[in-house]
């Protein structure tokens, strides 16, 4: 029976996370208690879900900087809908969130596909537009917990088998993406588009359409997370998830997804998000000031990207690199 290679990147990253947990436990043994680990996972669930969407986009050689603004706008929209129609069933609200997010993703996708505008420019523009629109629809006001219905805020907190639904949403998303990315034509075309877009064209894959689907997927996940985020924290205002898009990209990079497209895995994205989540939760426990978190995250990104690059070098590139360095 053929034995598959153990994925080196994911294994080392998992080891790094394990090491972090051991370090945290050595300072405070309660950190690795199952209940606390479940809390860490729950805190990281939004990042995991968004990282999956961002992974799909980055695999197609694009980038989506508008996910956090999308999340915030969708979150505000569903919060205001809940205030206006308190009895609306939760499944309807979730459907609205996903559709809204997907629609915004589709806007990104159309601009990239039909007008050939570079993805970083499109999503830079829509990031500011979406963020500004939150202010327009809310008139700058907050939606607070007492204005939300009990079922609205209760849903992501409800527990099944000891885990909140927010955590289950992340787990289900991971499973679905693991299957889709490795077992469906869409998943294969996403890797093909990123790996070699010209070759993909000659195998009959529509590059632009695939990138469009990637943006829709990313947008839909941002919409879903928008509802979960707002309901979980029981507050909606203009600045929620401010700057979170860069954390999402960081999770993907740390997880080994190549910014040049075509390389990366669902496992990598999840582990990257968990790494950042563990760092964030572990710092206060070991009495390191939260002000260190940003620098630690930045260092982790640099280490991860340096490691992934060296691991990925092919023999052909080494020759060229030597020639390049001699100049």
């Amino acid at each position, binding site marked *: 029976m053929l034995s598959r290679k153990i994925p080196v990147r994911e294994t080392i990253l998992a080891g790094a996370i394990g090491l972090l947990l051991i370090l945290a436990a050595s300072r405070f043994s309660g950190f690795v208690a199952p209940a606390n680990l479940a809390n860490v996972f729950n805190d990281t669930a939004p990042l995991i879900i968004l990282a999956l969407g961002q992974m799909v986009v980055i695999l*197609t*050689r*694009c*980038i989506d*900087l508008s996910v956090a603004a999308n999340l915030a706008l969708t979150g505000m929209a569903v919060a205001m809908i809940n205030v206006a129609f308190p009895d609306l069933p939760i499944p309807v609200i979730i459907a609205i969130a996903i559709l809204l997010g997907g629609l915004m993703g589709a806007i990104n996708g159309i*601009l990239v596909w039909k*007008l*050939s*505008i*570079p*993805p*970083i*420019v*499109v999503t*830079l*523009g*829509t*990031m*500011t*537009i979406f*963020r*500004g*629109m939150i*202010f*327009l629809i809310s008139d*700058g006001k907050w939606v607070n917990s007492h204005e939300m219905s009990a079922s609205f805020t209760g849903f992501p907190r409800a527990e099944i088998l000891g885990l909140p639904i927010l955590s289950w949403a992340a787990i289900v998303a991971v499973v679905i993406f693991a299957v889709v990315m490795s077992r469906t034509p869409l998943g294969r075309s996403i890797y093909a588009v990123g790996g070699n*877009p*010209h070759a993909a*064209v000659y195998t009959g894959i529509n*590059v*632009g359409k695939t*990138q469009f689907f990637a943006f829709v997927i990313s947008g839909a996940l941002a919409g879903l997370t928008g509802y979960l985020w707002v309901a979980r924290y029981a507050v909606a205002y203009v600045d929620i998830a401010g*700057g979170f898009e*860069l954390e999402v990209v*960081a999770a993907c*990079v740390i997880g080994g997804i190549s*910014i*040049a497209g075509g390389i990366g895995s669902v496992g990598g994205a999840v582990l990257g998000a968990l790494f950042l989540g563990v760092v964030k939760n572990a710092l206060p426990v070991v009495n390191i*000031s939260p*002000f*260190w*978190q*940003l*620098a*630690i*995250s*930045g*260092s*982790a*990104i*640099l280490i991860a*990207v*340096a490691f992934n*690059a060296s691991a990925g070098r092919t023999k052909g590139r080494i020759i*060229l*690199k030597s*020639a*390049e*360095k001699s*100049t």
Partner: protein
Amino acid sequence: MSDTLAPLRNIPDRLNSRAFRTFRSWESLLLAVAVAIFVVNSFTSPYFLNAWNLSDATFNFTEKAMIAFAMALLIIAGEIDLSVASIIALASTAMGLAVQHGAGTPELVAIGLTVGLLCGAFNAVFVTVLGLPSIVVTIGTMSLFRGISYIILGDDAFRGYPTSFAWFGQGYIYWVFTVEMLFFVIIAVIYGVLLHKTSFGRSVYAIGNNPTGALFSGIRVQRVKFILFLLTGLMSGVAAICLTSRLGSTRPSIAQGMELEVVTMVVLGGVNILGGSGSIPGVVIAAFVMGLVTFGLGLLNVPGIVMSIFIGLLLIGVIALPRLWTMAARAKKR
């Protein structure tokens, strides 16, 4: 980022006249937008056409534009630097620390520029020596540099800058013309000459269009990129001096999010985000466009967060318009 198939080349039987090419250029379109915005603002607010108000409005863009010129060269060469705002934060923090230890204005300027250069060199080593993608490296250093600022400052702030230091960000050369505007003009000229009148500038274009071809043409690709990162670091240091001087204090969150505004200015200026084309005059006009838009909307009491909608629409719209025009024209020919 996206690598769609290049459109079929259409070789004309003769070139258009120089005047026609200038008229159809990106810079002319942008200039028309700038004029339109100026006229609209003049009519919508009685306070717009006031020399001192317009002078104050320049503070909206001069600091960002200084960085945008260096960023334009970097993007034309096919790289990007998202850590520029964090370099400002770190340089500003370093200057604040120096003030605590009794440093005077000349020392502060030297420290600001040095920290900027060092940060640029740090980025340069990762991108050119280790060969890593610049967008990812600078996302990492964006967190690292600002993270160091947070470690030093926490939620505190540095104050007490010397009075003479205020000249950079609050001084006037003559009448309504500010020191920052003078710096802006000088730096624009320097970068315009560097990009458009020197062999170094031509090598930047060559690298952006085809780095491998440039390498085999004898251009020192990695060395040029190294210099470009030093320049973005240096210009961030200059911007840090002006901004810190103008605000009179330093917080670790200083200049938060400015990197995306700088990139917006560069892209709006007609620089191809994928590298290979663009011009300094375009970036200059884009700086004025963004400055006029934010100033005009400010006079109309439009909230800052809503202004961002206009900037976002402007960014996508100005790029989408020529493509839609081209598509429509092509449809007619069919």
